[in-house]
């Protein structure tokens, strides 16, 4: 890495290790259901127990996402979300929180359209610590991964049950921050993997890398988050949180007063699950 990264991700995982527990990574969609509500959720997440924050960049065609996150993206776009607004959310979040790592997650086209160099400069300046870009496998590393690493922005790669031993070193080669293990073959919010399968996969990853391993896809309850926390360095929850946004909209799609408290109390329950897992 040519430029020093923000150091927030490494510091957070080191702190978690010192505490002897796994972390909770929460996903919410930027601008869902609208800019101000999304900002209120985002600001409340660390207090509710989120250790790392993933912020979705809305895209019209999220080919690896299930219905919950697809709908969240369309709600956000419908309420005027765009890349500049997403980066404004990050800036506003960072103004009040210098410690919690924030990772942008999404698809490549909105970044490509914004311009890679401009995006990396603006993202880093806004306080983004890392990127997860679903449709950029290592075969396309020159697009964004290598420029991101050069600009001091972590590039967090997804590994999956189909990533075999032959392929794994290539997938891990330019990965930084942490490794995100997608525990099922499928889309977000679908079925769940067994603890045994996750254990085997995490063990395999740890033979190949010293980076922290976060596990996601199919974690819907505090119990499931706790089970993953006993195995991995962090549990990622996305669709289940986003569903709490969806469930607290009125008939015309506007947020009810219960929305932000409902989302944050669910995150608190997940965080409690994660914190008690190794107790």
């Amino acid at each position, binding site marked *: 890495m040519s430029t020093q990264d923000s150091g927030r991700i490494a510091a957070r995982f080191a702190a978690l290790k010192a505490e002897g527990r796994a972390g909770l990574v929460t996903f919410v969609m930027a601008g869902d259901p609208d800019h101000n509500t999304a900002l209120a959720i985002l600001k409340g997440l660390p207090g509710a127990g989120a250790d790392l924050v993933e912020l979705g960049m809305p895209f019209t*065609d999220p080919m*690896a996402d299930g219905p919950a996150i697809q709908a969240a993206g*369309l709600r956000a776009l419908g309420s005027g979300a*765009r890349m500049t607004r997403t980066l404004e959310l990050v800036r506003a979040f960072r103004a009040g929180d210098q410690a919690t790592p924030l990772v942008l997650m999404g698809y490549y086209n*909105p970044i490509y*359209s914004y311009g890679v160099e401009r995006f990396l400069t603006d993202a880093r300046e806004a306080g983004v610590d890392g990127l997860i870009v679903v449709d950029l496998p290592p075969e396309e590393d020159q697009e964004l991964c290598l420029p991101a690493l050069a600009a001091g922005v972590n590039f967090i790669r997804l590994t999956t049950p*189909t990533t075999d031993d032959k*392929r794994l070193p290539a997938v891990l080669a330019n990965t930084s921050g942490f490794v995100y293990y997608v525990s099922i073959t499928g889309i977000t919010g679908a079925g769940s993997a067994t603890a045994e399968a996750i254990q085997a996969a995490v063990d395999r990853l740890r033979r190949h890398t010293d980076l922290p391993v976060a596990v996601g896809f199919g974690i819907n309850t505090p119990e499931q988050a706790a089970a993953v926390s006993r195995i991995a360095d962090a549990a990622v929850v996305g669709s289940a949180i986003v569903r709490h946004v969806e469930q607290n909209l009125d008939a015309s799609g506007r947020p009810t007063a219960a929305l932000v408290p409902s989302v944050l109390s669910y995150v608190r329950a997940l965080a409690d699950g994660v914190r008690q897992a190794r107790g």
Partner: protein
Amino acid sequence: MTQALNTFRGGPDEHGHFGMFGGRYVAETLMPLILELEEAYDAAKADPEFHAELRHYLTHYVGRPSPLYLAERLTAELGGAKIYFKRDELNHTGAHKINNCMGQILLAKRMGKKRIIAETGAGQHGVATATVAALFGLPCTIYMGEVDIERQAPNVFRMKLLGAEVKPAKSGSRTLKDAMNEALRDWVTNVEDTFYIIGTVAGPHPYPTLVRDFQCVIGEEVRQQMQEAEGRLPDLLVAAIGGGSNAMGLFHPFLDDPTVKMLAVEAGGHGLDVPNGHAASLTGGRPGVLHGNRTYLLQDDDGQIIEGHSISAGLDYPGIGPEHAWLKDVGRVEYTSATDKEALEAFQLCARTEGILPALEPSHALAAVRKVAPTLPKDTLVVMNLCGRGDKDIFTVAKHLGVQM
């Protein structure tokens, strides 16, 4: 690989790039599958048995070669160049789509895959896929946008008769691009046993290449047939483009023949000046990344995909095959567009002068022929790919002509 300028047929490079276009922009879950497909296709390409089997089915099941037909009354009516139709609408299932489906299903069989999925817009690719799946006894799921299911009811019923399950894509704009998203979501979920038959020269590498190769039978036949008919090469090739497979199949074998000009016709919808009123990715879009490849896309200034519009459900896709994007940028092929209205007029002209109902897709190509043919000398040889028959479109045409059926 350096793309030497002495050939336009050398692409893609080993990463699936045609110049800056193409590539493999897919989720990691799919990456091993795409590499497996590439390996299997390379092996099949080198295997004479694979080619013999494909040739057998193309001859005895699809009905190839399709005729190269001199459209004399149309030629007389337009009063210029000599117009030939490549009659790919006479193939079994009524369009060029089956050329590719036959190739891919034989590949699926070689790879031991047990289940077939596909996306479809107008339903022609869905019907062709359901057909070959029935022929080889493989279960088949076709994804189709909810909006397209409504406007293409006869093809939905055809697919069901052929034993396919038709699943509606209910997300986004509920058209072809969303059907492709749903097919990719299915594939990412069912990685072990499923083969995804992509219908056009788009998607992640190696799809643009393998679909092109399976469609090249069109152009290869034209070369031979024109030699027999006129003793020389054609002067101008014309084809409609949505994703671009019928055009690529006609053009590619001639790319290195400098005297052969090529004109591809996009769906101009209500006109290129109407925001979101057309499906002309090349002439009205800009480069971006969608569905596994970098290509020209219809998108807004934030990189969000715009659905586009065309009277033809087979053309309203917001992207275009990456090799077309490259051929546009290097200037080997000329790209233009025809509006809904011009396509409808061409549809009627063809019916009246030649007794052929063309699909609305090649009606766009014919609209361009209608403009250009009168400006060309009488000894100019034009070949238009009549890539589909219009029976499926009579309801749409009736509606636009104000006829109650």
